[in-house]
């Protein structure tokens, strides 16, 4: 079933790519949107079923495995646990919404929907992969698909941004590949099987070899996450990508980095992670404060949201540093931080994904991201205003919304382990609150400039799709138990909480 969640969109993508472009379904953007949305929802449905069957026991469940290149210890292995299940399900949801969301197709609907569906299968596959080789395959392929999405449907200096994204993240994926090979060669017998490697702990002895492997993984994941100072590819890629692609880039692709930290680096090299945890926490706090301050200085709506991603990913890394810290007796706090970090990954996917879709709609109506040119839209565009406000409040961590659930857990955990850093990080929250309020004020309050007299509100489709995301953000904020329980089934055993 998990295999179907991965390969239904991929096979559908190939089928769509082969459609004739000038007649039939291939020439009908409307028809293709419906078909592609239906396909995009398949993984979501399948993962919802998988969630119902998930029993909360530790370890990987619903595993499906087939030998692939047994001579090299490579197999197709997929499965899920309390960490990967929410992320994979969030991926299915964000993709379904993004595929259905209206976008300027530039006369190439076939290629657009094929790439989106292909990227969906690949992204779901990455979160479900239990084999390092398979993980890396999905990792790399996602870069290529995103490169074409930005380059072909982006705006502004799209090709340059796409190239920068591709070069930069590929530069991260090669250290990752070398690190994977390092682990593979250290395991005896050589294998790419994650569960087996985590059981064996082949690099537990430490030493220079383990340090190099750690560095490889760290650089690879840090670029993708991104942690400052590895974030410079992110703003141009986000700004120039089409709205739905930005939503996926921020909502799903960034999570691949943070997920990799937990799934691979912290699991394979826990001792080294614990030793370096204080330094990582400092890096995280730098990302938090730096991301927030730079976002504060932006006048471009999309750039502003992009930099808040750096800030939010900082919270995740802070949570992970706390979760992996060597803090005897603090297992409960560490589990709390890990759960919080994972909720943050899911929440950020929904919230920031939604905000990027909003900015796509704003661009389609106003032709610019420049905050200064807008104002007073509250009177013209009610649903746009309220949906944006809800997502922005969720992003700044207002109680009752998903972001708050995540951040409060991260901070409670961090206060127990790194109190001083936690207090500095709180500054980030204050700045973020300020910048979102200012953004909302600029765009929606004040006097309505004459040129926006006819500014259209969100269409029914846009409002409905954003409503789904906003509704889930609200649901997680108000009744988070179902999500927290699932994640805790992973987080508790991971930190060794008695």
């Amino acid at each position: 079933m998990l295999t179907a969640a991965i390969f239904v969109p991929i096979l559908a993508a190939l089928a769509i790519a082969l459609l004739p472009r000038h007649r039939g379904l291939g020439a009908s953007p409307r028809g293709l949107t419906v078909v592609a949305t239906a396909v995009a929802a398949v993984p979501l449905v399948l993962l919802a079923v998988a969630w119902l069957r998930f029993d909360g026991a530790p370890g990987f469940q619903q595993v499906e495995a087939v030998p692939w290149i047994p001579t090299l210890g490579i197999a197709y292995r997929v499965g899920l646990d309390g960490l990967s299940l929410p992320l994979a399900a969030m991926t299915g949801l964000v993709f379904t919404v993004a595929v259905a969301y209206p976008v300027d197709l530039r006369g190439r609907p076939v290629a657009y929907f094929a790439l989106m569906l292909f990227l969906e299968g690949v992204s779901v596959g990455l979160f479900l992969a239990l084999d390092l080789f398979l993980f890396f395959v999905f990792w790399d392929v996602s870069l290529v698909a995103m490169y074409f999405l930005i380059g072909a449907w982006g705006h502004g200096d799209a090709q340059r941004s796409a190239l920068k994204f591709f070069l930069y993240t590929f530069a991260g994926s090669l250290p990752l590949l070398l690190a994977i090979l390092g682990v593979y060669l250290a395991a005896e017998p050589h294998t790419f099987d994650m569960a087996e490697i985590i059981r064996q702990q082949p690099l537990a002895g430490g030493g220079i070899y383990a340090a190099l492997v750690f560095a490889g993984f760290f650089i690879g994941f840090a670029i993708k996450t991104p942690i400052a100072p590895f974030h410079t590819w992110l703003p141009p890629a986000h700004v120039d990508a089409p709205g739905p692609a930005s939503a996926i880039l921020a909502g799903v692709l960034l999570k691949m980095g943070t997920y990799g930290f937990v799934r691979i680096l912290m699991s394979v090299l826990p001792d080294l992670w614990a030793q370096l945890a204080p330094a990582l926490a400092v890096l995280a706090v730098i990302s938090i404060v730096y991301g927030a301050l730079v976002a504060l200085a932006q006048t471009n709506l999309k750039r502003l949201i992009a930099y808040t991603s750096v800030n939010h990913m900082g919270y995740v890394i802070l949570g992970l540093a706390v979760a992996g810290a060597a803090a005897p007796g603090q297992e409960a706090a560490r589990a709390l931080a890990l759960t919080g970090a994972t909720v943050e990954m899911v929440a950020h996917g929904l919230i920031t994904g939604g905000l990027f879709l909003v900015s796509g709609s704003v661009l389609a109506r106003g032709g610019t991201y420049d905050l200064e040119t807008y104002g007073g839209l509250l009177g013209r565009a009610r649903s746009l205003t309220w949906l944006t406000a809800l997502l922005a409040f969720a992003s700044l961590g207002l109680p009752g919304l998903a972001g708050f659930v995540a951040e409060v857990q991260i901070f409670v955990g961090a206060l127990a382990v790194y109190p001083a850093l936690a207090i500095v990080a709180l500054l980030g929250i204050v700045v973020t609150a300020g910048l979102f309020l200012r953004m909302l004020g600029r765009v929606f309050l004040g006097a309505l400039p004459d040129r926006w007299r006819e500014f259209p509100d969100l269409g029914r489709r846009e409002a409905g799709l954003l409503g789904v995301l906003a509704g889930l953000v609200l649901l997680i904020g108000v009744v988070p138990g179902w999500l927290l329980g699932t994640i805790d089934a992973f987080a508790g055993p991971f930190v060794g909480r008695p």
Partner: protein
Amino acid sequence: MPVATMAGWAADVIAELSVVAGGVVVLLYALAARRGRQAGAAWIALATTAVALALTVPALIEPGRLTFAGTYARDHAAAIARVIVLLATAVTIVLSVPWFRRDPRHGEYYTLLLYSALGAMLLAGATSLSELVVAMLLSSATGFVLAAYHRRSSASAEAAIKYYLVGALANGAMLMGVALLYGLAGGTTLDRLPGLPPTAGPVAAVAVALVMAGLMFKVGGVPVHVWVPDVAQGAPVPVAGFLLAVPKVGAFVFLARFVLALPAQELGWAAMVAVGAAATMTLGNLACLWQDDVRRLLGWSAVSQTGYGLMAVAALGRSDLAMVALLYFLVAYVPGNLAAFGVVTTLRGRTALADYPGLADQHRAEAAALALSFLSFIGVPPLSGFVAKLLLFAVAIQAGFAWLAVFAAVNTVISIFYYVRVLAPVYFAAATARMRTLGAAAASVTVASAAALVITGVLAQPLVAAFAAAAPGR
């Protein structure tokens, strides 16, 4: 010598003999046929490759052994190399028919092509230095003429002259090295090399370096790589695709046999090859960076690919996967190269980067073939180029050349830049004029070569298992 022994030996090289016979038939046909019917020679040549492929099958299954008094290997590595060479030759033949349609005298061309392939096949099986010399000269002499086959094109002539001059130098050096090794070891078969007297040290090192110079010329490695970009740019396009790929197959396999036969670590060949690999991949890469001519870019990228392949050679004897990595690299590289040159051929030799915008709009299949080829060169999964890079990195790390793996990783990142510089306009820009092609046959073998990258990448297991069993006999 008993007739029975002779007949047995002949049976051992039946695939090679079939190519010799096919080449003669093609030549006779070309002499007899009218100008308008010269293309018929291509069909005879194509049939020859099919027959030779069929005759190679037994050698893929039977256990390997030496034949011709220890001078020639009939083993899996040689047979695998033969399969790659013959398939690549068949693709080249199909590409050549429309390309040479207006050349009234292209019948003999197919004889040259077959004999050049034969040179590569002999190179892959050679286990003696004298056999090496014969195979190298056969491969080189035919290669020079093939590169010059556009008789009225100065670019073609220039490429051939450069190829010839560098080749003469490298082959001369190799002959010197062979002579020295013969004197030191008292025989030409490779099994004599492990017994080199300890006193031979410095002279032996020089001799090994000279032989390697000849082999580096064939694979297009630094410092005897200078012919590669010129041949890529000036030679007839199908020939360029052929010459950058096919001789390499034979030369890499012989190089592997040669270094494995050398006395363990005394001559320092592994470090020598590792440095050569690093220099080759870096130089090839840097030369690609601002290249505005697609053929020349493919030439330089072939140089950098050779550098990656040499990583496996450096790891031979130190990593149990080195031979797998080398053979798999060839499986990934050859179709990638053929697909890229196939696209250029199908587009009637269109080579300026400025002529590529909008290709994807007009010719979806050709654009996809070019993209798959380039992505495979970069090493993007699930294409075979990725599995090759994975194996190459792994064996380099295992052999203690982790720095080389890092070097290759950095080079890979650099390479994205110039490959994407071609692909971006192909996909993102609008076409300015109608692009005409050479027809369905050329396009279909090009697409088939690109499809091979996907198929061998996803279904790598049978190949990897076969290669793991194919350690060459000495």
